[in-house]
C-alpha cells in the first residue's frame, strides 16, 4: 500500500499532474489579474489548459543544424527538473513527498535547470533570435541567481547567526518558521529580493528581456513549436507554483498544524502571486544591461545589508 500511496503522491497530488494543473491554474490567475489591472476582461479559466493541450497536439518542427536529441531532451529535462524540485517543497501546506537534509540547496539548483535548459535550447539552434535570447537568458541567470539563492538561504542563515539551529531542509525550516514571527517581517530585504528574483527566474515583466517579443520574437524558444514549447510552458507554470510555495514556506509563517493549514498556506501563496502580478503591471521592461546592474548594484547589496543588520542586532543583544 505504501508504494501505491507514494506513487499517488508522485504522479497525481500534490506533485506530478496535480502540480502541473495547479501551475496552469496559477497561470490563469496571473493572466486574469493582469488583465483586470489593465481594465481588460482577460481569458476564461480553461484558457491555459486549452493552450497546453493544443500545443501538445501540434506538429513539432525541428530546425536544421540542431541536435535532434538535445532538441527533444531539453524540454523534458526542464520539466523533470522542475517537478523534482517540487518533491521537497511542502506544496499546498502538505508534507513534502520526499524530504532529506540539504534539500533546500538541491531544490534551488533544480529550479535553475529550467532557465539553463531554455538557454541551451536557444544556443543550440542557429536562429539569430534564439541565439540572442539564449545570450540574454544566460546573462539574466548570472544576474539574479546569486541574490535569489542567497535570499532563500537567508532564513536558515539568520537562524544560524542568531545562534539557533539552522537547517538546510525545507520541511524542518517550514515547521520551525511556524513557531516564530514571519521571516518576511524580520527579514524584509531578502523577502523582497526573493520575490523579485522569482520574477527574474520566470522571465516575467519587467525581467522579460530574454523573450522580449518586440526585439527578438520569442527569444531562446523561437524555434520551438508543439510539444517542446508545451513542455517548457508547463515547466514554467509548475515553477511558478513551486517558487511561490517555497517563499511562502520560508517567509510567510511556514507550515503549522491543523486542518486549515493547506487552505491558509495556498491563500498566502496566492497573495504572493497578486503582488507579483502587480509588479508586472506597473513596471516597464528593463534592458538586459539594466537588469544586470539592478541585481548586482541593488539585489546583492540588499541581501548583504540584511545579513549585516542581523549580525549587528545579534552583537548588540549579546552586548546588552
Amino acid at each position, binding site marked *: 500500500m505504501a508504494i501505491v500511496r507514494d506513487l499517488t503522491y508522485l504522479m497525481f497530488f500534490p506533485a506530478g499532474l496535480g502540480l502541473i494543473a495547479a501551475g496552469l491554474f496559477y497561470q490563469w490567475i496571473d493572466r486574469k489579474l493582469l488583465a483586470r489591472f489593465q481594465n481588460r476582461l482577460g481569458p476564461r479559466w480553461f484558457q491555459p489548459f486549452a493552450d497546453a493541450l493544443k500545443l501538445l497536439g501540434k506538429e513539432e518542427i525541428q530546425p536544421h543544424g540542431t541536435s535532434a536529441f538535445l532538441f527533444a531532451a531539453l524540454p523534458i529535462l526542464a520539466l523533470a527538473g522542475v517537478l523534482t524540485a517540487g518533491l521537497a517543497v511542502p506544496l499546498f501546506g502538505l508534507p513534502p513527498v520526499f524530504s532529506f537534509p540539504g534539500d533546500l540547496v538541491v531544490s534551488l539548483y533544480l529550479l535553475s535547470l529550467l532557465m539553463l535548459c531554455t538557454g541551451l535550447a536557444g544556443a543550440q539552434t542557429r536562429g539569430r533570435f534564439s541565439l540572442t535570447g539564449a545570450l540574454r537568458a544566460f546573462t539574466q541567470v548570472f544576474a539574479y541567481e546569486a541574490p535569489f539563492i542567497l535570499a532563500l538561504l537567508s532564513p536558515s542563515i539568520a537562524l544560524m547567526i542568531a545562534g539557533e539551529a539552522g537547517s538546510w531542509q525545507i520541511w524542518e525550516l517550514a515547521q520551525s518558521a511556524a513557531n516564530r514571527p514571519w521571516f518576511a517581517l524580520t527579514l524584509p530585504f531578502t523577502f523582497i529580493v526573493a520575490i523579485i528574483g522569482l520574477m527574474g527566474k520566470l522571465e516575467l515583466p519587467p525581467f522579460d*528581456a530574454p523573450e522580449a517579443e518586440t*526585439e527578438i520574437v520569442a527569444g531562446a524558444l523561437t524555434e520551438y513549436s508543439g510539444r517542446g514549447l508545451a513542455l517548457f510552458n508547463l515547466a514554467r507554470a509548475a515553477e511558478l507554483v513551486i517558487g511561490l510555495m517555497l517563499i511562502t514556506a520560508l517567509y510567510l509563517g511556514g507550515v503549522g498544524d491543523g486542518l486549515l493549514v493547506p487552505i491558509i498556506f495556498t491563500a498566502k501563496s496566492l497573495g504572493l502571486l497578486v503582488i507579483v502580478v502587480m509588479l508586472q503591471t506597473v513596471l516597464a521592461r528593463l534592458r538586459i544591461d539594466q537588469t544586470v546592474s539592478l541585481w548586482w548594484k541593488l539585489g546583492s547589496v540588499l541581501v548583504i545589508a540584511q545579513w549585516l543588520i542581523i549580525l549587528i542586532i545579534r552583537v548588540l543583544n549579546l552586548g546588552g
Partner: protein
Amino acid sequence: MNPTQTADRFIIPIGPQHPALKEPGHFEFTVEGETVTGASVRLGYAHRGIEKGTESRNWTQNLYLLERVCGICSHIHATAYTLGVEQLAEVEAPPRAQAIREIFAELERIHSHLLWLGVAAHDAGFDTLFMYTWRDRETVMDILEEVSGNRVHYSANILGGVKFDITDKAANTILKGLDFLEERTHHYRSVVNEDTFFLQRTRGVGLMTKEEALRLGVVGPTARASGVERDIRVDAPYIAYHDFPVNLVTLPTGDLEARFLVRLDELLDSYRVIRDILNDMPEGELTVKRMPRKMKPGEVISRVEAPRGELFYFIRSTGGESPDRIKVRTPTLCNMGSVIKQAVGHNLADVPMILVGIDPCFSCNDRAVSIRESRRNGQEKVWNWADLRRYGIEFYRRKMGLESSILE
C-alpha cells in the same frame, strides 16, 4: 572593415515578418554583443500600385482610393487630394466645410498619436500603458464613428466640401469626449515624463540633434522633437488653419522622451483647437455649388501636415475625367533615414523604440519611384540645391503669395 571582421558580423534581421513591426519592412542590424554597429533598411513590401490605380479611376473614385493609402491617417490623405483637385477646378470649399475638415484632421491626429503612444509603450515592454492608451483611444474612435459613420475611413471629404455636418448633438459628444481625453493625456504626460522605469528606456535614447534632423530631412513630430520648427499647419496654413491656428510644439532635446512629449503636447493643442472651432463654427453651405466632373489641365501640388509629418501630393490633369498622374510622398519615407542614423551605437533593445519613435507607417511609404530621362534632348538640366530652393521660393510667391523674407 576588413574581410575577417566582415565574416564575423552578426546580423539581426528584423522583418518583413516580425512581432515588433505590424507592417512589412526589412531591417538588418549588425550587432556586436548587444550593441548595434550598423544598420540598413529595405522597403517596398507593401507596394500596392495605388498611384497607377488613380489613373484609371475618375476624380471622385480616387478620393476613396487615396483615403486608403493609410488606415490611420485616412482623412488627411483625402484632404491633401481634395485640396489639390479643388485648386485644379479653381473652387474653394465653403468655410464651414473647411472647419469640419479641420475638426476631422485633428480628431484623426488624436487617434493617431494615442495609437502611437500605445505601440511605443508596447515596444518598450510597458503593456499596461499600452492597454490604457488604447482603451482611451476608443473614446475618440467612438466619436468618429458617431460623427462620420465609420471608425477608420471617415469619408468626410467630398470634392468641393464635406459630406456631413457636425450637428450640435455631435459637437456635444465631441466636447464631452475631449474633456475625458484631456484629463487622461495630462496623466500620460506625467507617466511618460516621470515613471522611473519608463524613463530608463527613453531619456537620452535615440538622440538626434537639430543639425542632423535638418540634414536628414526629417519631418513631423520627429523633427519637432529635435527643435526643428516645421509644421505645415503653421508654415503654410491650409483648410481652416488660418482662422483656427495651432501652436507649434517643439522641444530641443531630440531624444525619445522628447518625441513622446511633443506628441502628447500636440494632443493637448488639438483638444484646444477643436474646442475653438466648435465654439465658433462658421455658418453656411457644406459644399460648393458646382464641382466639375472633368478638371482643367494643369499641375498642382498640395501639402498638408499628417499626424506623422508633411504629406505631399502632386496632381496633374490633362482635362479628362481621371488624373494623368498623382504622386504621393508620405512622411514616413522622409523619416526612415533617421532610424538608420540613430540606431548605430545603441543597444539592440532600444532599436524597436527608435524605429517606433518616428511613428512609421510602412504601407503609406511603400511606393515606386521611377526616374525618367528627359525625352526632349537638350532640355535636360541639373538643378543643385540652391536652384531648387530659389525655384521653390519663387513658386510659392507666385502661387500662394507667400513672402519668402521670413525664410531668409
